[in-house]
């Protein structure tokens, strides 16, 4: 339910429960996106992945 639904009321219950739901969904969505984004960056930087403390230019060069 979104606040523009006619069933929505600006009361404590709606704010707490719907807010909680959207908050949890946002945390998960952002978390997953962060992880995927970071992994994607690391991959295109060419980090082979088996020494993750060592990503960046060196790893990239090695890739080619």
């Amino acid at each position, binding site marked *: 339910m979104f606040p523009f639904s006619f069933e929505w009321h600006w009361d404590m219950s709606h704010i707490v429960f*719907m807010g909680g*739901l959207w908050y*949890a969904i946002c945390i998960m969505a952002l*978390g997953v996106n*962060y*992880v995927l984004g970071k992994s*994607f960056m*690391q*991959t295109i930087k060419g*980090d082979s992945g088996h020494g993750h403390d060592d990503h960046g230019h060196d790893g990239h060069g090695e890739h080619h």
Partner: protein
Amino acid sequence: MEAAYQKLVRLESQLHPEGVQRAPLWQFVLWLGFFGTVLLWGVYAMFLCWFKGLNQTNMNDYYGFALWIWADLAVIAVGGGAFFTGLLRYVIGKDPLKYIINYAVLIGFICYSSALLILAIDIGQPLRGWFIFWHANVHSMLTEVAFCLSCYFGVLCIEYIPLVLENRKLDEIPFFHHTAHNFHEVMAIFAATGAFLSFFHQGSLGGVAGVLFGRPFAYRPEFYIWPTTFFLFTWSAAACGPCFTILVTKITEAITRKKLVKDNVVELLAKIAGWMLLTYSIAKIADTLYWGFVMLPKHGLQITDFYTNASLIYTKLGGVPWILLIEILCSVIPALILVSKKGRQSKPALVVAVLLGSMCAMINRWVMVLQVMAAPIMTFDQFALYFPSWQELATTVLPVAYGVILISLSHRYLPVFPQERELNPV
């Protein structure tokens, strides 16, 4: 033929985690085949329910909630090991639990996906299931259940995915390797979110029965804005969930004939579970006494009303409300075993304790679903009987078969048990 099989075995063995021994492929396929057949039987029953409707069950207007809802509540309760172990490991910092957290997550994942599947079969109009989110009545406990349950299932997926990506072959792909690694880095956030969500959905499952003021058997006066069953359910899930995790670990060890988790890890979890169970049983007894001797008389009822003139399932054997006693014994006995060092170090005692501990939650959920439905409230009403149809049984066995298959696959191909290599040198 023989050569082709050998080649297949060689290829397949490359998927195994490094440095571990796995059962021969034919044995594994046979094992999967057996449980796969059971699974198909359940899937068939599931489609019957979806296409022909809930008349395929033996539920009726007196038993609107029946075997499925019990199974649902039970798997969620015993699946509580995932959130509680996660909480202990990532938030409270009980480090040794990192050797069992994978398995706890896997069991939780199975339990919760099963619960969602059962719910999808259980509702009369599955295609309208999204109404619970879209037209949510935020005053309903079931809404809270749906919100937290589906969100927490998302958390469990996030926790399980990195384990899948750590499969030896998948791990060779850099993107997957990074993803798994990065997931582990931020796992504490997800674990904390999961613990938060679990607290509420375990509780609101208890609230589902506890708010029914038309059903004095289940109704508990409110404590703040929640009925006491809210807290009892959360507490029992945190207590019994780890018991179930240990139980399944012990079963897995027995079937694979290998030690998979070190004793100190199991004992730590068992000890925490024991204290949780002990405190839970005290709270449960107090709640039962308050309900029986303060609340019921207020409504003109006596505790014996619910344990007499009923079918044998719920009633007296020689005048004793045996199901209530068993429920309480199932929390007290394992609690006493697990809090004592001797108890949890003795393998048979530990197994008995975690078995009883798992049963504790299951019996409690049974009582809070089926007996709530069964107990007549109008004085002239009857005590109806219910026995599940084969379709209900098949769809309830379905998650078990699915769980066995997923555990088997995960154990065979994924590094579920970090200590396995050390404990079983090849």
